């Protein structure tokens, strides 16, 4: 990543929302961090950001969203907060010639980080130089049980789909389901569907059904495209249990799967509406996970 245009973009986001004094304070702290690197000045400034800038939702304009995705593919500021943007600027100010020094500095910061600081670090990953150097950090974020921290790496964040290996990416999906985060906000999900993930999801559905618990209908999105054999039977069971949102999700998921004709034949009318594009994933997402 080129950090200069990114930093300029982030600075515009902040200055449109913070007081001139707070913006100036942040600008000066960034200059300090650029010189001093990781250390007491960074820790102090990083911690002080919410007290200076507040922690309101960023609520970006359409133009700001477009500028974000023009700056970097998949960058989506809709879940950002103002303090997160300030902290992104500080992290992007760190000296970054050496990949290991940069990831080491971030590890050091995370050792003392509170909830908001951790979330900011994970939101910054897609903007940092040396993208590959932050894979272990991202995987660590996925291990968090703190919903806000997990959401910062999992939702509307292009980093996991681009950088994580199959095992780690599958954990993004499985963990998100486990804590009830909406799968539709995982960037690049459809492109990362794989048999191991589909199998794990089928196993987890069977386990939950055996316990008399429900599952999220969006999970079939990661099963249908690669389903065959026993997985098709699980999809069949899902429709059997609920022809509504689950039925629609299953049909959407197998739309391009030639092995799933038998499933389409269960409800040819619905299958036709899926084929023509009249119904889409947004129709599954309506409800309590929207």
């Amino acid at each position, binding site marked *: 990543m080129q950090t200069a245009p990114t930093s300029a973009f982030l600075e515009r986001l902040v200055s449109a929302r913070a007081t001139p004094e707070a913006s100036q304070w942040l600008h000066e702290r960034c200059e300090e961090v650029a010189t001093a690197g990781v250390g007491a000045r960074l820790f102090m400034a990083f911690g002080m950001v919410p007290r200076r800038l507040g922690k309101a939702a960023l609520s970006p304009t359409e133009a700001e969203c477009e500028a974000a995705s023009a700056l970097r593919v998949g960058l989506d500021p809709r879940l950002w907060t103002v303090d997160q943007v300030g902290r992104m600027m500080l992290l992007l100010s760190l000296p970054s010639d050496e990949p290991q020094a940069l990831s080491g500095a971030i590890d050091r910061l995370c050792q003392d*980080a*509170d909830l*908001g600081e951790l979330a900011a670090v994970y939101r910054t990953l897609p903007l940092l130089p040396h993208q590959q150097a932050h894979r272990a950090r991202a995987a660590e974020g996925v291990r968090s049980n703190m*919903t806000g921290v997990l*959401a910062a790496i999992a939702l509307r964040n292009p980093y996991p789909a681009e950088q994580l290996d199959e095992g780690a990416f599958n954990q993004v999906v499985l963990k998100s389901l486990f*804590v*009830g985060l909406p799968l539709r906000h995982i960037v690049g999900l459809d492109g990362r569907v794989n048999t191991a993930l589909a199998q794990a999801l089928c196993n987890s559905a069977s386990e939950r059904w055996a316990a*008399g618990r429900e599952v999220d209908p969006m999970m079939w999105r990661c099963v249908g495209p690669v389903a065959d054999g026993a997985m098709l039977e699980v999809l069949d069971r899902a429709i059997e249990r609920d022809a509504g949102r689950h039925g629609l999700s299953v049909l959407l998921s197998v739309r391009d799967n030639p092995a799933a004709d038998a499933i389409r034949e269960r409800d040819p009318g619905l299958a036709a509406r899926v084929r023509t594009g009249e119904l889409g994933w947004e129709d599954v997402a309506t409800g309590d*996970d929207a």
Partner: protein
Amino acid sequence: MKFIDPHIHMVSRVTADYEAMAAEGVVAVIEPAFWMGQPRTDIGAFQHYFATLVGWERFRASQFGIQHYCMMGLNSKEANDEGLAAEVLDDLLPRYLFKEGVVAVGEIGFDDITAAEEKAYRCQLDMAKEAGMTVCVHTPHRDKTRGTLLSMDIAEEHGVDPATVVIDHNNEETVEQVLDRGFYAAFTIYPGTKMGNERMVEIVKKYGSERIFIDSSADWGVSDALSVPKTARLMAERGIAQGDIDNVCYHNALAVYGRGGQMREADWNTPESIDQRALFEGNSVLRGQRPRVDAAEGDVIE
């Protein structure tokens, strides 16, 4: 009625306590940094503990609709390991005092009343004064009156405004001087030691409710996480005015610990202000955030 428990060690409590507290109307808790029943032996143990207070514990409380705040400080018992104490004071505390939800420096003060304890106490008073933060002073179990008076003498000597200092774990012997000198007087309702709540009723009858509040200090000992709401009910039964009960169980703690702007009524009165709601574009319920087990019939666990 809404309650604040301004001194409770939640890391030692189970989630059932959070559920019971929320059900009784506790909206916020403050967790002072303390020891763990035995001394820590390296700096990493302090670091992990401090990180837990601003991380996992804060999240865990939020799952039950309770706002969790904390205080950072080197407690008096562990101040006696002078080498380790210096590391905590010089290196660790400055990094944690300004974390989100840190409302005070505490609990600090005296335990055995040693020179090492005094050194750490003085150092942290200066930190609090420089940062403009509230101070919570732990007063000793043994030789309480002398320890309490000495704590106040030293705070005054360091030029710390008494109206920003809470003297905690008071009893009938200490309350009058604490109030007369302008400090806040906190009382810990803790079974068998410290205060019982019938005695607390008499204190409020005698001294009123200005700068007086109660807490549970519930921890890993024989303690009661519901002692604030229980004492509020007892005060009402025994004829204490509702306004005084509100002061003692809610407003006074909020006034002194809310000074720095890290603890505000809006945090629990307007749920939209909870950061994580922003993630869900205004949806009122965040799934996975409410793992509360619904009440079931008899012995059934679903």
